[in-house]
């Protein structure tokens, strides 16, 4: 399976935090028999490598499968729907978009520019200022079609565009899992375990629980980073943009970070490092598990995260996949102290 096929499958199923079971089922069906699978109480999918070989480190690769979405919390008298966001969505990404509810579609509009005052033109609206219009005229009509508590997601089709770019709603939330799916299907003799995490948009519970279950000494976290808002990428003057980012924060084990760095340089990958004093919540949660775990986060650049038009370069995915394979291979041979 190539990345185009894998992502088309993953993006075809909506997986808003707390409602990932259909996607987990799909990924379970994509897992080869060389891994034994288990779906835990939080619907995380844990895949354990059956072909144990002598490996210097117990490696766990993690990626989240959930995407952000909307939950309806009120029906207004005129039939409009008020909502809250599940996970992080920029309110601007919602304006002018089409959303899919269970039985109907809706649009999220805004006051026309002609009617906006100076403050409204220049400011980011709040989620509480937005609403979904499903084209009905009053609360009585809407009540028959929509329930309070119902979920809504961006409506968008998966498309290829430009030179090897893929576009789909919230594709950024599926790219880590896509790399993981390809890894477990790569018929290599690499020794690693993996977990597809649910509820990551709202909690670190899944990361804690799966790490606790598998008890690795090293976890590699695969996630996305918004290229446009990452100054390490935007200030990069080179013609070819980096395919992935190796992250380092005060908690990152120096030996692990240097190992990754040296592999990336030796194999001539196009990458950059991101040094940050901020420690992501997922890393904080994992580190405290069991007797302590060393983490490394690899981020794949994408654009317009968590919107109806998120996109990612296929080349980024291919190169990150090759790098992670190389990294696991080295981690199987070199003990990280």
């Amino acid at each position, binding site marked *: 399976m190539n990345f185009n096929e894998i992502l088309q499958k993953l993006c075809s199923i909506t997986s808003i935090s707390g409602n990932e079971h259909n996607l987990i089922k799909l990924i379970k069906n994509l897992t080869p028999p060389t891994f034994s699978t288990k779906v835990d109480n939080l619907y995380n999918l844990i895949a354990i490598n059956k072909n144990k070989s002598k490996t210097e480190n117990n490696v766990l690769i993690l990626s989240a499968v959930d995407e952000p979405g909307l939950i309806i919390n009120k029906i207004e008298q005129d039939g409009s729907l008020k909502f809250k966001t599940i996970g992080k969505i920029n309110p601007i990404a919602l304006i002018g978009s089409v959303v899919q509810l269970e039985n109907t579609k809706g649009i999220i509009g805004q006051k026309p520019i002609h009617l906006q005052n100076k403050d409204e033109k220049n400011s980011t609206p709040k989620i509480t200022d937005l609403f979904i219009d499903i*084209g009905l005229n009053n609360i009585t009509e809407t009540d028959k079609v929509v329930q309070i508590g119902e979920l809504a997601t961006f409506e968008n089709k998966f498309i290829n*565009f430009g030179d090897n770019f893929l576009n789909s709603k919230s594709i950024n939330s599926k790219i880590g899992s896509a790399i993981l799916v390809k890894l477990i299907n790569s018929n290599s003799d690499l020794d690693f375990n993996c977990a597809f995490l649910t509820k990551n948009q709202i909690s670190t519970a899944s990361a804690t629980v799966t790490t606790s279950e598998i008890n690795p000494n090293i976890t590699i976290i695969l996630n996305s980073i918004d290229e446009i808002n990452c100054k390490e990428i935007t200030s990069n003057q080179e013609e070819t943009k980096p395919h992935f980012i190796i992250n380092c924060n005060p908690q990152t084990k120096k030996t692990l970070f240097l190992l990754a760095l040296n592999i990336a340089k030796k194999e001539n990958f196009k990458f950059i490092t991101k040094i940050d004093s901020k420690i992501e919540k997922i890393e904080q949660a994992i580190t405290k598990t069991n007797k302590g775990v060393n983490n490394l986060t690899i981020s794949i650049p994408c654009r317009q995260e968590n919107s109806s*038009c998120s996109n990612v370069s296929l080349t980024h995915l291919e190169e990150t996949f090759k790098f992670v394979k190389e990294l696991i291979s080295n981690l199987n041979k070199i003990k990280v102290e």
Partner: protein
Amino acid sequence: MDLKENLISLCKLEKVSGDETNCAKILKNLLKPYSENVLITNNNSVIAKIQHKNNLPEIILTAHLDEIGFMVSEITKEGYLKLKNCGGISTNIANFQKVTVLGKEKLTGFTFFDDKTKTLLADVGLTKEKIENLVQLGDRVAFEFNPIFLNDQKFCSKSLDDCAGIVTILLAIEKLNKLKLNCKLTTIFSSQEEISGNGVKVSSYFCNAEIAVCVDVSFAKHLYCEDENFAEMMKGPLIGISPILDSNLSEHLKIIAKKNKIPYQLEIMNGLTSTDADKIVKTKKGIKTCLLSIPIRYMHSPIEQVAFKDIENTAKLIAEFIKSI
């Protein structure tokens, strides 16, 4: 004429102000069954003369065919296209949208706003070198949006401003087709309304009309946009009342609506109308003008929304108005 089918196909066309050629050709073909003489002006307006074989008074029916969009102002070293607005578009609406870049070939792109340079950019997924072979500065960029029906009553699409007006006039012409009228009709589908109004102004010189009916869209109420002056959806067209419009014509429209039980609302304006009506009025010796507007939500966005009932009632009112002359 299938209202829904025509509305969908017209809305999907790219016709950003100043680059309406393709749309003008299609509209010329749509008008040919009704008109003995259809022409496209130098600035892409379409003029059709209907039942012009007599000395009866001439009435203009006009709507604008251009849509808001963007122009490419620069190709950055990363291969992004810097965009400038053609027409009024808010940055919030323009961000996170799918667009079509109209270069040597059509390219799909996605917009994003660069906070550092405060510019709107489009990403087409190509390198600068590849883009430079396909896109020129000044090329237009249009919103790309697949029209949708909302619960059968309402329709959402880009460029309902003013495809709704165009389809309304086409519906009205169909109702009047082969009837013996006491006037001759000239349909003007004008270009460049969103940027200057020059399309209708120039087109009016091809006519000798004393009366004009301008059809456009106007604000409808929705949550957080509930000014008492705004229209209700599904309650019929807005008849414009303004010092620049002819009060007798506006009054006549009200009488015709009441007589034919066509629901209508009033749009009270205390100055200019911000439509092509303001331009037609001062053409040649001056033309008595009235304005009918279709209620629309989320104007100047890719998700503009109208109700089919409102389009049908507006077309009915125009047809009855013409029959009453």
